[in-house]
């Protein structure tokens, strides 16, 4: 086996005009830094308080998920996808199920599509609410916004628990449908939670949107241009905050999203504040979708009756399936050789790819801005490192 070693040395630092080279300070932010949302390290070179260079270091949570999936059956990987982005396990399941359905040509019954949309949008609500809470916490707002967000998230996790049996590791989707139908009274409870959500959003907006400290900390910080966002493959709310009008729910029309009326909020500046605002507005649109879906959900089967659970072997071929997960474009690329396990199983991790531009956003800013910028990118290390 070839052991071709690549160039591992870092490029030499160029001293700036005012500072000589030995006045630069290299510090490691992380892997145990609380603002890194997990085990993630940034090697930061500082000139006084200013960031000269920032190199992210990945891999602390690496377990080679893709290799493990090659020796699992297709369904055997489904619960493992929960552990990628553990905040949004249901959308991970959905992306994987979608890819397998494309690979094997499986139809999904209508009721199952509605269930997917409902649980998927609930996932988006709780992810965005939490993310804003974490962002505020990182910037030093000592708990209040985070606790407000967690109060709402709790209600949604209770819904997940009664539907799937688990609060976070839901393992809810199956190829060609969903695992469990709604328990009695679930829909009424969910309607109540969703109906109460705009009130929380009003409260949240009143608390944060016009807050002077928040504006000072986030406006014109970490500006991402539209051109760089497209070139660097940035997806999800982060791309839309930079003005990229691209929502996979609108573009691909996957599942039944073309039945619902909803808008795609766009930012204009591409700074941390816009990323925060886009997520806040997206939650309102998710509430819209949820109200329509819960009104229209038809009765019927929840899984394709022709779907084989045991001995599932897709015909040789390949498929790339992607969805608009709360973090961005979550895709699965599967290659089948006709055997019960995938020949190649690739996760397109939005968290990792959104980190491509971390250095570009941070260089020239202060140390405290790194925390705000990283918080606004919305990463989960389970997905970054896989």
């Amino acid at each position: 086996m070839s052991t071709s070693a690549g160039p591992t040395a870092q490029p030499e630092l160029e001293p700036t005009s005012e500072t000589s080279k030995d006045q630069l300070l290299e510090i490691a932010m992380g892997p145990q830094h609380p603002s890194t949302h997990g085990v993630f390290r940034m090697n930061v070179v500082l000139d006084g308080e200013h960031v000269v260079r920032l190199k992210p270091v990945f891999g602390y949570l690496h377990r080679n998920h893709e290799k493990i999936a090659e020796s699992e059956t297709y369904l055997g990987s489904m619960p493992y996808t929960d552990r990628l982005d553990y905040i949004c396990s249901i959308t991970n399941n959905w992306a994987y199920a979608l890819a397998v359905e494309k690979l094997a040509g499986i139809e999904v019954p209508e009721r199952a599509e509605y269930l997917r949309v409902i649980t998927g949008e609930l996932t988006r609500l709780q992810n965005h609410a939490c993310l804003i809470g974490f962002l505020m916490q990182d910037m030093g707002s000592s708990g209040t916004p985070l606790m407000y967000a967690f109060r709402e998230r709790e209600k949604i996790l209770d819904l997940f628990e009664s539907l799937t049996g688990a609060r976070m590791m839901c393992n809810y989707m199956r190829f060609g449908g969903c695992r469990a139908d709604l328990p009695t009274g679930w829909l009424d409870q969910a309607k109540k939670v969703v109906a109460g959500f705009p009130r929380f959003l009003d409260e949240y907006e009143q608390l944060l949107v016009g807050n002077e400290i928040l504006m000072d900390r986030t406006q014109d910080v970490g500006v991402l241009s539209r051109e760089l966002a497209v070139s660097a493959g940035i997806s999800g709310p982060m791309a839309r905050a930079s003005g990229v009008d691209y929502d996979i729910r609108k573009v691909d029309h996957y599942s039944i999203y073309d039945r619902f009326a909803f808008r795609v909020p766009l930012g204009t500046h591409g700074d941390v504040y816009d990323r925060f605002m886009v997520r806040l507005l997206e939650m309102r649109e998710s509430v819209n979708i949820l109200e329509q879906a819960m009104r229209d959900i038809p009765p019927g089967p929840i899984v394709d009756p022709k779907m084989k659970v045991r001995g599932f072997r897709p015909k040789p071929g390949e498929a790339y399936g992607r969805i608009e997960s709360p973090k961005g474009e979550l895709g699965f690329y599967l290659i089948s050789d006709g055997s019960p396990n995938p020949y190649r199983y690739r996760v397109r991790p939005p968290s990792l790819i959104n980190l491509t531009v971390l250095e570009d956003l941070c260089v020239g800013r202060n140390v405290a801005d790194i925390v705000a910028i990283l918080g606004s990118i919305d990463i989960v290390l389970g997905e970054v490192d896989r």
Partner: protein
Amino acid sequence: MNLEAIKSKLEAAVPGCRLVLVANPSPSGQHSLRIDSAHAVAVALCLRDAPGLRFDFCSNVTGIDWPGKQTTEKVMARKLVDGIEQDVEELRTIAPPGSLEVVYHLFSIEKKLGPLVLRISTGDRDANVHLPSLTPVWRSAELQEREIFDLFGVVFDGHPDLRRLLLWDEFQEHPMRRDYVEPDDYEYEPTAHDEVLRRANQHLSEAGGKLQSEGGGR
């Protein structure tokens, strides 16, 4: 726009490039385009910038290892059997060279098209693991190509910062390759378990260390 039209457009724009349509038999219908590594960057630039194409968003970069499929065939060989020369059937294994392949999934944000699947292959992977990097064309390939370098050992020429992404720099091999064998001294700390202890003893003795008694678990 179908793949045939894109192919002929590229052939006209990049003279000398060799493009092959790779059919995908699965119901997804996502056929792909294999491009030769010498013209990969030119083809990628054309895909990104040509007004009719504008594939400006490189979503996903995947590495794939295709080891040569070992086959056995029967051959007749002349051999001495019991002192008499005879024709005997023998099994011979044939191991053709394997290859590493990198797949790019492209989308067009402007025209809302995609996915366009590009494939580049190294050919015989024992002789060549070099491929041109498409990071100068699409920034999004930066971390993903580093990951493929890390896990598959594809060296991307022209990548601005090609280092291991997920594993540590001192790691020698490429675990996503199909012929990767996990080292047996992953955890050589002696524990009460017999198999681990046996391996630990073996490694300790190879290193000239002191042996612990077999089965001496606490």
